[in-house]
């Protein structure tokens, strides 16, 4: 029978929540618990086991109870009858259900550290059982009395014992609260009161030990951080600042020295580890000049420091300052002198920059190994909430005194009441903050250790879950609740900073207080917008009204504003977004895409605020925003694909003008696609060059087809000749940039039997039309067609027949023409004619035997002359991307000279691409390895900077930017950190200088 009973008792204990029922059963039978359990009563209903089962860790509580009872019975140094009375009182308290029993078991089940304290000081059980809320004054009185009459302990030890006794009471009320999250502010305030009392007692110790120093000065202790905020943790650093004033007739230096001695002693009294442990570190690093500065200062010295030197973050810290110990009048005098300055900090010139740096610091400073378990640091941590609330207090507390609370949750409530943050957001954050803090409290309470990490061990998580009220699968539930709240907080910037801006302009629910326009401007400026008034107008336009679009944008914009603010030009980004949004009206797909397709709104915001070129394209063709919807959308299309789309689209139009317009609309979209891919750094320089070349080729082909049909229609006769467009320059090389013209020459070849004159006339008409179509204002940026590289240059006919080219080259060909032909590549028109044209020019561009010395001299002379003549007036020859020293043309001429001399004998050199030829020239030993590297680097950098300039400004830049903002914007596009414009310029100068000296060697000096 006994075994059945034992088994069933074990099962009941297990059911009650004991992790180790066998051991629990053993402990329950321990003689130490004699008198607590009725041996005849095996019904657990409302008995001790039941009560134990309600606490966070029943096994722990039971073991601690056994130890406590033993300790109490064994206690020495008390009269026997007194001790026995104490034991029987405790037994009485534990035998009956009620708050007393719950408190004691609750504390024992939540904290091993407090359990150990009770075992060491069993007589303190009454402080747990009879716990009640106490005022700060009462706590101060008790702690100060304890250190004044330390008995057989040292003063420091007396402080530690008395502190923990008080802590028992706070923990008792906290752990037995039916809703620990709700009482959090009260617990945190009680802990702050207790810290205050400890500091006062520590000062009493210092004063007692250093009477001479104490007589020479008045000392006040100001609480900072959570102590000042009246919202302390169980264990955290207690941040303080010391203020001193000389006693009458005492020199200031002497007073400061005395104050320093007192403060030092005070800090040691709290933080030194003794046989009775330690309280917490006292941290005075928030004082002026931090750890380098003097430990104590006078009010005047503090005030002059803050007036002159303090940084933004120091004002943010000062926001929390509150007199907590020592001379209260002096503390108040200090506050009166410096606290008003907190509220002027937002007006300081470097406020915005400082705040952004501080924000980055908050988000960055997490050791990666802990990131996943952090309650305090990192995005979504407690620090993030506190920081954000303080920042808003600084920005708006300047004009609204109601916001000047030191306590996070109170400040949040005030911000909400004033409309500075939304009511809903404030409530959600309040809930999240309380839960995270409660978790933190419970974790710290267990061992009284300073930690902000969620535990990893199963048993720890279970205790934590039970401590905040979960039963059943407590460990899983607590993790879930934590993650849900952390997610809430993670979106805090959007919720706190940006969403109320919309409320300011949207005129929605009227019962809720709104951010005033002035406050909204303050905030936008603090976030980095250069024209807050303008930005506010855009926000208003975007969110006003009852349309679905306005509704969706009201949800989206708070997040998007953050993305805009990350880029070089937030104002431009917001404006472009407004334009796009207005012209897309209420297109169903647009709203759906923004709302549903996660990353597309983000990509859009970044693209718009990073690149005016892309923004302008999008503003004129808002539908292109669709391609942001998926990743495949930002991969450049092939030449054939684009050509096909253009042809199809043109075929549907009735007039040539409409057809061209349709073709160019497609080009616009494709340009945007390439820009987006480039900005997202998904593709490199070579790929951008190829994609832009493909796009131009497709455009030339489609437009050529339109022009041909047009000529056929107007003359009423079919074409009597075939036409070919040959790409030259960067286009021929497959290395086009955003700002490149189309360098081409035109070739035609009359059909057999066609009249030569008619063929020439038709061909000329086609070319004229083609040029006109491409140079006109259109949906996309015009593509000026430059055919100056044709035979006889501007004086020659715009188009020649193949036979005419053959005759011309046979008679007249000049070296510069051979050189230009190096990059000739058929781009559009008749493919077979293209092959024949290449067969014609190959012997010219790759001459057998290379160049004769006179020709080499001619090339060099021409280049030298070009350097002085072609450079635009006023341009700096060191920084001009194309014609400057070490610029694009230096590199191109060098490699082209090698090609002219050696391509005949070395087929590897027969490429139209500059980088390809450069690589071949290096491999073939025609260029020194270092020189080739220098040339390649310069060419690539100049090309990238030219592209990036076009992307940033929407207009080409030919030289290093002369405006700091432009320089920084270009640097951002090249992937450098903010304000790197100057660095990029230095890099360009260096790279081009090296290229120039390589070019001198390889081009001018080579034999």
């Amino acid at each position, binding site marked *: 029978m006994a075994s059945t009973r034992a088994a069933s008792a074990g099962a009941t204990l297990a059911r009650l929540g004991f992790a180790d029922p066998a051991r629990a059963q053993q402990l329950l039978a321990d003689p130490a618990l004699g008198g607590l359990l009725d041996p005849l009563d095996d019904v657990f209903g409302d008995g001790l086991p039941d009560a134990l089962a309600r606490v966070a860790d029943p096994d722990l509580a039971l073991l601690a109870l056994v130890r406590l009872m033993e300790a109490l019975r064994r206690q020495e140094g008390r009269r026997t009858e007194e001790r026995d009375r104490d034991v029987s009182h405790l037994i009485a308290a534990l035998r009956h259900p009620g708050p007393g029993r719950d408190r004691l078991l609750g504390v024992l089940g939540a904290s091993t550290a407090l359990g150990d304290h009770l075992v060491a000081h069993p007589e303190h059980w009454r402080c747990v059982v009879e716990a009640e809320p106490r005022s700060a004054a009462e706590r101060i009185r008790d702690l100060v009395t304890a250190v004044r009459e330390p008995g057989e302990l040292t003063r420091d030890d007396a402080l530690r014992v008395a502190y923990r006794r008080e802590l028992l009471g706070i923990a008792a009320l906290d752990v037995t609260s039916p809703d620990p999250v709700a009482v959090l502010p009260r617990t945190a305030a009680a802990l702050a009161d207790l810290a205050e009392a400890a500091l006062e007692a520590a000062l009493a110790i210092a004063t007692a030990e250093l009477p001479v120093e104490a007589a020479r000065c008045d000392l006040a202790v100001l609480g900072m951080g959570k102590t000042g905020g009246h919202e302390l943790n169980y264990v955290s650093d207690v941040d303080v600042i010391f203020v001193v004033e000389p006693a009458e007739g005492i020199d200031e230096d002497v007073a400061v020295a005395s104050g320093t001695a007192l403060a030092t002693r005070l800090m040691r009294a709290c933080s030194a580890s003794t046989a009775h442990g330690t309280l917490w570190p006292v941290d005075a690093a928030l004082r002026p*000049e931090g750890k380098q500065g003097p430990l104590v200062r006078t009010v005047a010295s503090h005030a002059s420091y803050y007036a002159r030197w303090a940084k933004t973050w120091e004002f943010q810290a000062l926001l929390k300052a509150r007199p907590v110990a020592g001379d209260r009048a002096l503390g108040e005098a200090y506050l009166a002198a410096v606290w008003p300055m907190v509220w002027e900090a937002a007006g300081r010139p470097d406020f915005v920059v400082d705040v952004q740096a501080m924000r980055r610091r908050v988000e960055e400073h997490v050791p990666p190994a802990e990131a996943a378990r952090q309650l305090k640091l990192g995005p979504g941590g407690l620090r993030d909430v506190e920081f954000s609330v303080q920042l808003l207090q600084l920005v708006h507390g300047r004009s609204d005194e109601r916001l000047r609370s030191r306590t996070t949750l109170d400040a949040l409530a005030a911000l909400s009441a004033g409309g500075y943050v939304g009511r809903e957001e404030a409530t959600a954050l309040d809930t999240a903050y309380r839960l995270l803090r409660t978790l933190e409290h419970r974790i710290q309470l267990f061992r009284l250790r300073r930690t902000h990490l969620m535990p990893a061990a199963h048993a720890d998580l279970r205790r934590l879950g039970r401590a905040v009220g979960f039963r059943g699968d407590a460990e899983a539930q607590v993790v879930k609740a934590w993650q849900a709240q952390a997610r809430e907080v993670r979106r805090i910037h959007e919720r706190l900073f940006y969403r109320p801006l919309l409320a300011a302009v949207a005129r929605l629910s009227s019962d809720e207080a709104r951010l005033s326009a002035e406050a909204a401007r303050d905030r936008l400026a603090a976030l980095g917008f250069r024209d807050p008034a303008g930005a506010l107008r855009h926000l208003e336009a975007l969110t006003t009204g009852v349309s679905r679009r306005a509704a969706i944008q009201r949800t989206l914009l708070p997040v998007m504003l953050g993305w805009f603010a990350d880029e070089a030009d937030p104002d431009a980004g917001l404006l472009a977004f407004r334009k796009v949004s207005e012209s897309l009206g209420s297109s169903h797909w647009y709203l759906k895409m923004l709302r549903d397709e996660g990353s597309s709104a983000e990509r859009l915001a970044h693209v718009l605020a990073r690149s005016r070129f892309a923004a302008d394209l999008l503003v004129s063709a808002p539908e292109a925003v669709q391609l942001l919807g998926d990743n495949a959308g930002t991969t450049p299309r092939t030449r054939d694909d684009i050509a096909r789309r253009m042809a199809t689209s043109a075929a549907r139009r009735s007039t040539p003008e409409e057809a061209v317009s349709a073709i160019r609309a497609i080009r616009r979209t494709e340009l945007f696609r390439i820009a987006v891919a480039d900005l997202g750094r998904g593709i490199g320089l070579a790929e951008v060059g190829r994609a832009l070349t493909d796009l131009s080729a497709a455009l030339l082909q489609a437009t050529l087809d339109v022009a041909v049909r047009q000529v056929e229609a107007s003359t009423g006769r079919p074409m009597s000749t075939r036409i070919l467009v040959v790409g030259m320059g960067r286009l021929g090389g497959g290395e086009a940039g955003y700002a490149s013209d189309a360098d081409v020459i035109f070739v035609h070849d009359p059909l057999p039997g066609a009249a030569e004159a008619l063929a020439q006339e038709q061909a000329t008409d086609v070319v004229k039309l083609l040029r006109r179509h491409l140079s006109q204002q259109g949906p996309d940026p015009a593509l000026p067609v430059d055919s100056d590289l044709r035979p006889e240059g501007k004086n020659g006919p715009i188009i020649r027949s193949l036979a005419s080219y053959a005759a011309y080259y046979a008679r007249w060909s000049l070296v510069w023409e051979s050189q230009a032909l190096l990059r000739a590549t058929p781009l559009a028109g008749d493919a077979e004619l293209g092959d024949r044209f290449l067969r014609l020019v190959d012997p010219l561009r790759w001459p057998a035997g290379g160049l004769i010395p006179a020709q080499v001299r001619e090339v060099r002379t021409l280049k030298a002359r070009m350097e002085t003549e072609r450079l635009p007036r006023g341009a700096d020859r060191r920084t001009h991307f194309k014609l400057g020293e070490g610029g694009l043309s230096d590199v191109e001429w060098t490699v082209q000279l090698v090609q002219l001399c050696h391509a005949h004998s070395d087929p590897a050199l027969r490429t139209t691409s500059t980088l390809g030829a450069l690589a071949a020239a290096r491999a073939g030993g025609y260029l020194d390895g270092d020189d080739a590297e220098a040339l390649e680097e310069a060419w690539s950098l100049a090309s990238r900077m030219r592209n990036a300039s076009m992307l940033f400004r929407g207009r080409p830049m030919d030289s290093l930017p002369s405006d700091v903002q432009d320089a920084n914007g270009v640097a951002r596009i090249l992937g450098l950190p903010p304000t790197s414009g100057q660095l990029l*310029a230095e890099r360009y100068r260096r790279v081009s200088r090296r290229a120039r000296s390589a070019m001198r060697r390889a081009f001018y000096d080579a034999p």
Partner: protein
Amino acid sequence: MDRQQEFVLRTIEERDIRFVRLWFTDVLGTLKSVAVAPAELEGAFAEGIGFDGSAIEGFARIYEADMLAKPDPSTFQILPWRGESPGTARMFCDICLPDGSPSIADPRQVLKRALDKASDAGFTFYTHPEIEFFLLDRSAQSGADPVAIDTAGYFDHVPGGSGQDFRRSAITMLESMGISVEFSHHEGAPGQNEIDLRYADALTMADNIMTFRTVVKEVALEQNIYATFMPKVFAEHPGSGMHTHMSLFEGDTNAFYEAGGPYQLSTTGRRFIAGLLRHGAEFTAVTNQWVNSYKRLWGGGEAPAYLTWGHNNRSAMVRVPMYKPNKGNSSRVEVRTIDAACNPYLAYAVLLAAGLKGIEEGYELPAETEDDVWRLTADERRAMGIDPLPASLAEAIAAMERSELVAETLGDHVFEYFLRNKRAEWDDYRNQVTAFELSRYLPRL
């Protein structure tokens, strides 16, 4: 730093300073000065004082915006030559762009960058210059033929000489500005004096040299004479140099010292010298930046014109001075080419960089030269592997143009500007028809 600013503001209040001169240096080493009222100083500390950079040699055309001068409070000094109250004080400035980043065109920044690099390698760089200059009759200021104020020689004591008075007042003034003087005496040529400054870290020293040049000129004017740092004033007498003793410290230890090494010189010291010699030709345009500088270098006598080193060899570019027993921390190397008309920030930056390069790359130190290199024949020199320094500014420019080390040390903007300016100077010089030509050719040809 904040306490220093506080100190400055307090001193200004207490000492009744009415003007504060903000000093900085252009790329060619000319001192520039903006005076501000004390009330503006607080703003200057926080945000800097805006000025139009395009008017300053080497600062122009970086960006089309004002530049900012931010005073360095650790350089605060009251200017003694304005003597009585209300007084004037000065601070050196760092030059910044409107976005707050330090300007790459600021010579002080160039030296700071070089020092940072040394400090990354664990070194602090100390220098100790011996600055020579001529005291001339006041008329020289307006371009008249220079007349020395005395006719004494090396170490001569000139009774009742104004040179003596001069040195006494100059040294008093320097000391009152916190610049310690180690030594002063009359030099070899008439009117030539030398004042040695006590060693200091290179940035402080460069600031001190700027101050020194101003003080010397001010004191001379007070005494109605004219002081010049022009490297070669009299063709028949030695020129004025600025021999500079240099040492690297690792913490409190002199990195050049090694007990028992040759001349008690450590491997680090030997490599540092090797770096100076290997890159000597490349940076000569910086340490000797004027057309006139090369008249001193190639003027015979004691001038060091060869890329060699020696223990007691006055014709060598680098000298290892006699070691003082039991003074390990006094180990140092002396560069003898540099002249006092250089930009000290840039000059010290390139010297340091060349020495560090020698350490980094582990250059081998060539053999010591004991002979007077001037007396060797050209073939002897060639056989011994002794290379000459650039013979003219043109040669120095050509050597510098090829130097990655100098470009990297100065930064490409300064490098480019410096070369452009020097090429223009050389062209101007070459366009002259000199008195030499007129007197020699005109009668004959």
